[in-house]
């Protein structure tokens, strides 16, 4: 199976690899997946006083598509409000990276990581977490 150029680009030059201080109340961390399943994503956001995401970092254990999905997610998160970020849909990632059906779970994981990071931030700052009612494809 051949990877799309965009997956290869994100995989070869991953954006925003790194770690933010997870103990800071301005940082939200989402850790999703499981080593047994072959993919684990950690996505972190830095949020300012206006609930805008000023920075995003990731680290991912997984295949090329999983790494690319999380790299792309960090790009999309920067500059968004946490409310807008909550609206990022896994199918947008699938489309942008031209992921084949067998790799859709990588985009689902990225969406889960975004939501987990935002909810972590919300809970830390006295807001209720937002439950996702979406059924994944």
């Amino acid at each position: 199976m051949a990877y799309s150029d965009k997956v290869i680009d994100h995989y070869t030059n991953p954006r925003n690899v790194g770690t933010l201080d997870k103990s800071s109340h301005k940082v939200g961390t989402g850790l999703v997946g499981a080593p047994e399943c072959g993919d684990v994503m950690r996505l972190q956001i830095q949020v300012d006083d206006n609930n805008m995401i000023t920075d995003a970092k990731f680290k991912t254990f997984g295949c090329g598509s999983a790494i690319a999905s999380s790299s792309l997610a960090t790009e999309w998160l920067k500059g968004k409000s946490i409310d807008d970020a909550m609206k990022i849909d896994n199918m947008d990632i699938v489309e942008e990276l031209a992921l084949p059906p067998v790799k859709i779970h990588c985009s689902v994981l990225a969406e889960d990581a975004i939501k987990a990071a935002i909810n972590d931030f919300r809970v830390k700052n006295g807001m209720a977490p937002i439950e996702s009612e979406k059924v994944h494809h």
Partner: protein
Amino acid sequence: MNLPIYLDNNATTPMDPRVLEAMLPYFTQKFGNAASRNHPFGWVAEEGVDYAREQVAKLIGATEKEIIFTSGATESDNLAIKGLFEMYKEKGNHIITTVTEHKAVLDACKHVEKLGGRVTYLPVKEDGILDLALLEEAMTSETILVSVMYGNNEIGVIQPIKEIAAIAHKYGALFMTDAVQAVGKIPVNVITDGIDLLALSAHKIYGPKGVGALYVRRKGPRVKVTAQMDGGGHERGMRSGTLNVPGIVGLGKACELCQQEMESEAKRLSALRDRLQSSLLELEESYVNGNVEHRLPHVANISFKYVEGEGLMMAMKDLAVSSGSACTSASLEPSYVLKSLGLSDDLAHSSIRFGLGRFTTEEEVDYAIEVTKKSVLHLRELSPLWEMFKEGIDLDSIEWAEH
């Protein structure tokens, strides 16, 4: 040095040019049907087949009448297991095999179960080797066949074939081996090993794809299998179908070359493999899978912890290797062979199989070492698990959300 580098010789091998040369006349000039008994075209084709039969037989210590040509090892495995069950089911309905067999054996056994057979799938030890005491315990008076592969395709582990055959025979059962990975790489002898049926394939030994053979013992005891394909009664009635003469000639030549070069080649390859392995083990948290003493000379299966195999293969894009991680399958299940060694799923997902071959050079191995090391380090920089490990966090203490 040309890129990419091929290090997946357990999947298939490039054809040796000497094999191709031997085959060529049989496509255009010596094109006859080996079953045409009444004109020179048939005789010439038959001569080619007969010669190949001798070459194949010689490599495994058999006689030429014991060689049945097939379309490959999958067919040989199917013919052996299903054909034997059909032939001997009055005598007993029990077959014993192991969980690390190739799918061709496992699925043929599953088929036999549907026909009323009973199959025992024995586990293997942590190093991939079958526990002989377990085998002996599993033997019954109903056992008609024990089928254990010679060398494993994923980890290269070599089973104690002689001892396994002796146990099978002690209880009156026949012994079959899928020797696809072993034949031509290490000495295999059906007489001294006590093998009653043996499956082999041409494309794993620098021959063409689409041709293989099944050895069926003729003496002490005389073994018979029921044909699984009906037709003209070729191959002593056990495998009908016009013989693939060029393929068979190629298989024969491939066997002859292996016989001549196996000894020196095994030495060369194991030295190269050991160099690759010891260099890669310099990386922290890397482990060899399977027994390293009883192992095919050209294989090394290594897990690089905290790095996912498929992602790693993508980083090593100039290396053609294989991973035990199956991230593309719907189940996300890693290799069943690695799991049966007791490897945790995450370590199985982190494995890479390096398979060296006749055309692998020292320069290529050195390049592979460099690229692999660089890729593992790069991906560990990206890996949250590596970071946690470095921080001393016990990954087992985390409640992962399995998906």
